[in-house]
């Protein structure tokens, strides 16, 4: 079971209680701790930066609005991750977004826009994966990320998308096939160079 970094970020109960009580310093501290990981996750699922910022703002606002409902059964980061993922998938499922990107669940065509999430510290190996991920459809990318990195099960992904388990499995299989296809020539090239 892979555990995402967001769920690993420790937030003390005392800080949560203070934030619940409306103390701004506590809320700012939680924002500072969880905000970066939340935004990174959202950027993985939604490539467009402006949309990602909007969703980030929504997610963090919901966090503080619903903090009173948080019962502490799971880490705050895991709870927040669920809010962020739900918001992103709602966006991806929205008719507006589908019309805009000609999004089709069963379409194998790569997205028209390619976004690389590259930072100066990105090693060449992961840079290849970034590029390969950018060739996936938004749905394929989301399914790969949720399954392989966030540790969601097929049942959970299917539930989030409002589809069947086989939908999640087939999306993952197609996305991985495409990733292999994209990465394969580079791997071969690397082998011959050595």
């Amino acid at each position: 079971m892979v555990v995402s970094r967001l769920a690993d970020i420790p937030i003390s109960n005392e800080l949560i209680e203070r934030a619940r009580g409306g103390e701004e310093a506590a809320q700012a501290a939680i924002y500072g701790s969880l905000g970066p990981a939340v935004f990174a996750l959202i950027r993985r699922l939604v490539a467009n930066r402006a949309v990602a910022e909007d969703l980030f703002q929504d997610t963090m606002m919901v966090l503080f609005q619903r903090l009173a409902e948080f019962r502490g059964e799971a880490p705050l980061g895991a709870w927040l991750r669920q809010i962020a993922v739900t918001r992103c998938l709602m966006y991806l499922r929205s008719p507006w977004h589908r019309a805009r990107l000609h999004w089709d669940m069963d379409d194998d065509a790569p997205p028209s826009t390619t976004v690389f999430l590259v930072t100066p510290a990105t090693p060449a190996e992961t840079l290849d994966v970034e590029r390969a991920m950018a060739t996936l459809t938004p749905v394929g990318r989301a399914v790969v990320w949720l399954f392989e990195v966030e540790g969601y099960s097929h049942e959970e992904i299917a539930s989030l998308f409002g589809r069947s388990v086989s939908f999640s499995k087939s999306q993952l299989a197609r996305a991985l096939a495409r990733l292999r296809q994209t990465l394969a020539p580079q791997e071969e090239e690397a082998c011959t160079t050595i």
Partner: protein
Amino acid sequence: MHDDLDEKLIARRLRARADGSQDHAPYGWAEFKRRRDARAVAAWPTGRIRPALFAIAAAAAVLVAGIAIATLSHYRASMLAPSRTVAKVDAGADAGHNSNRPAAADRLARQRTRALEGWLADLPHNPTVVRVGAHAAVTRLQDQIAALDDLMSAERAAGSQPARLDALEHQRAQLVSSLAQVQYAEMLASAAL
């Protein structure tokens, strides 16, 4: 097997990417607060005006329902004394008032009534919120229109005078108009919710 290895490799690289990335929030706490406040301000007018709009629409619905009930009372009074109505209409016909009334105006009134009936027929049958007073007024108006339709059919079958039929037609047009006003007010009130 090869595919499985590939998948593991890809997954490992993705996780390495997630763990090794230098994440930053898109903006700091101060900017987050500014955006939150901006959204609250953007949502403020709607939130404040909505109850006022609802109150106005509800008041309009009550007013129109009152007018409709008053019209109904007047109509009932006239129905309770049919002979007097007929006498009045006959007297009017004898005096030549109806003959002076332009036929174009009658045609226009009928067209207006038909248009109102078409509009009423297109309205959704189940409003979001049912207000007892307005709903009762609508039901009573609909019943009265139906009763008037029966009466007019009977009068036509009995070969009544055209003046009498015109008077009934006029009363029916008033009822349809009242019904349309009540329904319109109801629609506004529902939209304001």
